[in-house]
């Protein structure tokens, strides 16, 4: 049934393209649902209205893994889209596919389109650049984990409502919340992203060797360090004392926070819009807690989300259209609007400054926490981003092992050793398959 619908949509798109006439068509496959889907169409329409030569056709292709699979199948069949939105964990796979992708910096140079990677927020662009600083894909929707606190619950527990800054303070606050009868004290969305990937960056610890894999596919995981083990151990201890409730691998915890069930939450900054709409209590958005005995902490956090990749084998005129569209997407007006309406971070420095100047962050407190946390310090090789092959599987391994710990079936040390070993096997396999 689903494939039938897909074929139908494609056929419809093909029919429409027949009537477009002299305009050069650019196909953009994306995974944005609901309100974000409307926003993506608005972006395409805005670009189409701004000039006559090119026409961007935005096509929803299912969730991230599905649209990537569809694009891979289309590439194998010789009709890939021009632009493909790929989630952050697919970055290494896309990069490894040298014959399938056209790096953005190369594309811009060939088309003579003005482009400077320095205009983009370093913590965002860094995720999608190679070790030489060349931008390979255009950042699109980026977020980072932040720390949400239910101020009403804090007051009920006799606290003044300021969020704990360190994990030590966190433990004290959590104990008081529990004592005040709070059923679920703390929960987290995206456990591996928050408590392994961002934990590492935030404390300037490597997730893997070779600059977290950015410098080469011969990278190895380093998540069995004493600091990593201690952090997971701490969470397991919270779980045992009823201070931490595990909610699942995705964003399940967010609903538990805005319903008032859980008093504290670490999850994507992109959850803000939803929380703001649903929470019937006063809340604050804060920096992630850190361990104050780890040197250099807090460093800066890393992003999640997706970027836009350009596929190979298209006509020069079409590539020119892609570069014009990318410039349009990066323009300050478009970025400011995207940032305000979606809650994703702005991708350019200019857009951030413009939003700040316009007084938006005073009106909506907390909306700037994500950008400020990403730009807390200049990114180091440990906090620039990560690039691990087959990381869809790698992240799953980490989550499996953490679940074992939180369920009380494994100790943190064994689990993190296991995650490292199993993760490295996946990396070696990717390395062997992507030698050239």
């Amino acid at each position, binding site marked *: 049934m689903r494939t039938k619908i897909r074929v139908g949509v494609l056929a419809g798109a093909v029919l429409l393209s027949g009537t477009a006439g002299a305009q050069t068509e650019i196909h953009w496959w994306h995974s944005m649902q609901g309100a974000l889907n409307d926003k993506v169409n608005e972006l395409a329409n805005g670009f189409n209205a701004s000039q006559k030569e090119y026409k961007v056709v935005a096509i929803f292709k299912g969730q991230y893994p599905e649209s990537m699979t569809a694009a891979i199948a289309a590439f194998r069949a010789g009709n890939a889209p021009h632009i493909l939105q790929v989630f952050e964990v697919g970055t290494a796979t896309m990069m490894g596919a040298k014959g399938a992708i056209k790096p953005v910096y190369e594309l811009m140079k060939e088309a003579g389109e003005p482009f400077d990677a320095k205009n983009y927020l370093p913590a965002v662009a860094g995720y999608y650049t190679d070790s030489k600083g060349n931008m390979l894909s255009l950042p699109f929707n980026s977020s980072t984990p932040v720390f949400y606190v239910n101020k009403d619950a804090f007051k009920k527990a006799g606290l003044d409502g300021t969020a704990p800054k360190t994990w030590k303070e966190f433990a004290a606050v959590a104990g008081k919340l529990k004592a005040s009868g709070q059923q679920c004290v703390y929960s987290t969305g995206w456990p591996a992203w928050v408590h392994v990937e961002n934990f590492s960056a935030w404390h300037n610890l490597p997730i893997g060797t070779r600059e977290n894999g950015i410098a080469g596919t011969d990278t190895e995981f380093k998540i069995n360090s004493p600091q990593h083990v201690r952090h997971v151990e701490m969470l397991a201890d919270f779980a045992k004392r009823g201070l931490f409730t*595990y909610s699942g691998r995705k964003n399940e915890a967010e609903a538990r926070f805005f*319903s008032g069930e859980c008093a504290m939450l670490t999850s994507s900054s992109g959850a803000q819009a939803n929380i703001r709409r649903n929470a019937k209590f006063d809340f604050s958005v804060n920096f992630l807690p850190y361990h104050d005995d780890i040197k250099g902490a807090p460093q800066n956090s890393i992003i999640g989300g997706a970027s836009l990749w350009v596929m190979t084998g298209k006509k020069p005129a079409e590539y020119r259209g892609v570069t014009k569209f990318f410039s349009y997407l990066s323009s300050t007006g478009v970025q400011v609007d995207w940032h305000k309406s979606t809650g994703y971070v702005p991708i350019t420095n200019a857009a951030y400054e413009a939003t700040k100047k316009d007084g938006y962050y005073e009106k909506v407190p907390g909306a700037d926490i994500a950008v400020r946390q990403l730009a807390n310090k200049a990114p180091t090789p440990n906090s620039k981003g990560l690039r691990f092959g087959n990381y869809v599987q790698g992240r799953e391994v980490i989550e499996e092992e953490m679940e*074992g710990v939180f369920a009380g*079936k494994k100790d943190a040390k064994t689990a993190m050793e296991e995650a490292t070993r199993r993760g490295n096997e996946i990396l070696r396999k990717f390395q062997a*398959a992507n030698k050239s």
Partner: protein
Amino acid sequence: MEKRVVFRSAWLPYALLVPQIAVTIVFFFWPAAQAFWFSFQLQDAFGISTEFAGLRNFADLLRDEHYLASFKSTAVFSLLVAASGIAISLLLATMADRVLRGALAYKTLLIWPYAVAPAVAGVLWAFLFAPSIGIVTYVIRKAGYNWDWVLQGDQAMLLVVMAATWKQISYNFLFFLAGLQSIPRSLVEAAAIDGAGPSRRFWTIVFPLLSPTTFFLLVVNIVYAFFDTFGVIDSTTQGGPAGATQILVYKVYYDGVKAGDLGGSSAQSVILMLIVIALTVAQFRFIERKVQY
């Protein structure tokens, strides 16, 4: 009893077979052959570089204790699904067979879940039993039991077994009901006159006469549990927590479709294919002997 239609034409029977054979080749043999071929290769997701890897994919799998553990969860899962599915539907069918008033309404209601897509069934059960908002969870918690399948592997397994079984009961029910209705009334009545109680009548007359149906359903249910249940799992536990509901077919789907590891996924599907062939052969050799046609 045998009816035989004789074709005069030499080519007509073959021509009539062509569509079916074509469908089987295109949608079954061809992909199976491809999976077999891919299982010996190491390939990046886009298929740009392909390299013959010999048995490496298989060796990697067999060294991975988590993959071996998923054999165990698959065995537990399929046995539970097949056994409880058959037992419950047999009970329901025997009861529905005895209902005099409103039989049609009962039957329709019992057949209904079969029209529900596996993914929808999964979502439905996941909602009922959701750790924070589930209505059943609320009742269980009130009873003082800690229900949290997001973290407790056994509970997660129970949940997917319930969802998968619930979906299959209708199918089994239909076959059992048809089987029950084809048992001659005279046999049961004669036994009743001889003084056999309802339970004795069931076990000595009805159940043996149902054995071909039961055997057929056993084979079908095992195949269902092995192959058709990944929709249920994908929409509820996604193989978690900590791999507790990672059954073989779900891992094939996850590694191949979601993670783009074609070689590994193909090797798993070849292994899975071998298991199901072996199981089916075993069922026909050993269990079928006990079936009375």
